[in-house]
């Protein structure tokens, strides 16, 4: 199947190095301490943060830092066919672990000992790149909750089909069986915190694809900064500053 046609356009009309349209909104869940909705093309994800608050399970309490918990789930209606049991299957458990460890690396947990930060991420529409969208949404929500962080964490995925590196794969391109490289970086520090890859790639091709994904992450970081700036201006306005 042709994923990049001879004119250089992909199935949805994008160029190989073009990302999907980004859209984000902060403060969507009133009850939560911080929340955000993040959209990458047709993929829509909502994140809610509760914390820092008292640890519910005293046996998990750490005396010198905060405990970070994360739960990733996909809504039944998020994919084309309605899913039966989206929670607590092996894929969700792994992605929860991945998101938790990624955010844990950037939250300054030592500033909040004996407390707990809960990250809940739910996929409302799944069209490829849900992992990346979840991490971006969680970053926004953490910023909304005012939790101190080292840096933003932004994430983007890239692939390699028809001998072309492609940025930000959609579901059709992802299920083509080609390689899928998901990268999460700390943009200001320029460090890679999340890196996952499946399928086979020669080493030098992999470097190209990873570089492309990192560029995508930096673009997402710029957009997130804009959104946060906009949000802060709104808050200032409401407080009458």
């Amino acid at each position: 199947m042709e994923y990049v046609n001879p004119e250089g356009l992909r199935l949805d009309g994008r160029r190989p190095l073009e990302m999907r349209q980004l859209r984000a909104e902060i403060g969507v869940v009133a009850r939560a301490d911080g929340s955000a909705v993040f959209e990458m093309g047709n993929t829509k994800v909502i994140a809610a943060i509760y914390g820092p608050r008292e640890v519910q399970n005293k046996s998990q309490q750490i005396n010198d830092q905060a405990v970070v918990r994360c739960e990733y789930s996909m809504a039944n209606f998020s994919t084309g066919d309605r899913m039966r049991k989206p929670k607590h299957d092996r894929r969700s458990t792994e992605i929860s672990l991945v998101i938790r460890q990624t955010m844990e690396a950037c939250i300054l947990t030592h500033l909040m000992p004996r407390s707990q930060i809960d990250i809940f991420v739910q996929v409302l529409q799944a069209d490829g790149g849900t992992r990346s969208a979840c991490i971006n949404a969680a970053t926004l929500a953490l910023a909304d909750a005012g939790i101190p962080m080292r840096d933003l964490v932004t994430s983007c995925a890239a692939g390699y089909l028809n001998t072309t590196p492609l940025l930000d794969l959609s579901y059709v391109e992802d299920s083509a069986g080609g390689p899928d490289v998901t990268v999460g970086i700390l943009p200001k520090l320029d460090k890679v915190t999340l890196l996952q890859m499946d399928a086979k790639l020669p080493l030098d091709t992999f470097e190209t694809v990873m570089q492309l994904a990192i560029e995508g992450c930096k673009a997402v970081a710029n957009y997130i900064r804009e959104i946060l700036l906009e949000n802060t201006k709104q808050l200032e306005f409401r407080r009458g500053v």
Partner: protein
Amino acid sequence: MEQRLANTWRMTVNEKKFIETALHSDLRIDGRRPFDYRELTVKFGREDGSSEVQLGLTHVMGFVSSQLVQPYRDRPNEGTLSVYTELSPMADPSFEAGRPTESAVELGRVIDRGLRESRAVDTESLCVVSGKFVWSIRIDLHILDNGGNLVDAANIAALAALLTFRRPECSLGGEDGQEVIVHPPEVREPLPLIIHHLPIAITFAFIGDENTVVIDPTHFEEGVMGGRLTATLNANGDVCAIQKAGGDGVMQSVIMQCLRIASVKAADITAKIRKAVDSYNTERALSKIRRQPASVAVQVTEPNQIEVKDFLSKHKEKLMLKSEEGGASHSDDMEIEAQSSEQDKSRRRDSTSKSFVGGPLSWDPYSKVKVAPVEKLEKSRSDEPYKGESPKLLADSSTSLLSDEKAATGLQIEKEKTLKDAVKPKHKRKKKASTNTDAS
């Protein structure tokens, strides 16, 4: 997380500081250098498809089994592969029996990704009837001792078990050709899986600031590390999977350096696994031969010198008495074999090395069958490392005959002399072309 917490609870601040300080001078607490792997031992169990791997103190057992199932709807002509991990509580105090923890799920999924997405195991050859019956391969990994770096050890155990696993041969039968008949291993030799390449997982730990990278962390180092990167590569230099699930951030250059080191280590470990599997296959073939003792002598020697022992008739009773049902069917096979065409013979001749002779019954100096040196057997075995021994070839080897000096002289030129050769068999009969009836 629970596992790491358990580790940090066990570890004192002094221990942590010691490990980090020692690493500044490129020293690790078990005496290795930062990019040295621990000692790797791969052993196999009695059954096909069971392996036992020891990587330093880490001990993992792998077991492969197969079952006929219905395929997935979107992949009707591909078999399935599933990896199940069991972190036994005896391996580590932080492991719990029952529901798999996050780390157990991650372990299983990393190994699964390395095998499935990179197409290491050929799933299309596992299809029997498209859309109805395919083979489902199930890999069970049991962690017996957590000495650190479970992913690497479990991955090697899975690969070793897959390489030595033999699935039963099945054929289509029944009125409409849709019924699947699974042949038991005694009737038809089971087949190995088709494995295109071996994806080897190499784990790096980032300790302290991100310039300190160590390979193959022990469980002490895992308690101190800030982040971990598992790269799955094969010996051809392809990256099959990468897993860096958060943790400390590292520079892109450090990651690429780790991948380059990993490709070197992957080639190393691939060689070790192949060596262990080869010696297992040799032993397996040998043990098969010992099961059929005094068998029919169909000798493949110099061109057109095919001799069939007259003992065939005389020793048939002996055969029937001695061999098990499996052996009996094999002797039937052998007879059929003896009557096979010239073409077959020449093919067999080519496939078995000229000086190949079987090696049974080394304990019985009076048997009609002379013992052959083991090395020749190995040589013939090594000709076909990963293909299943076809029934024909096996019948060939199990007919392992000797003791005819006509044959012997033909082969003696290339055969090594052992003490057993000095023990002359009691009855020697010179059989010439008169018994060449099977030559057709």
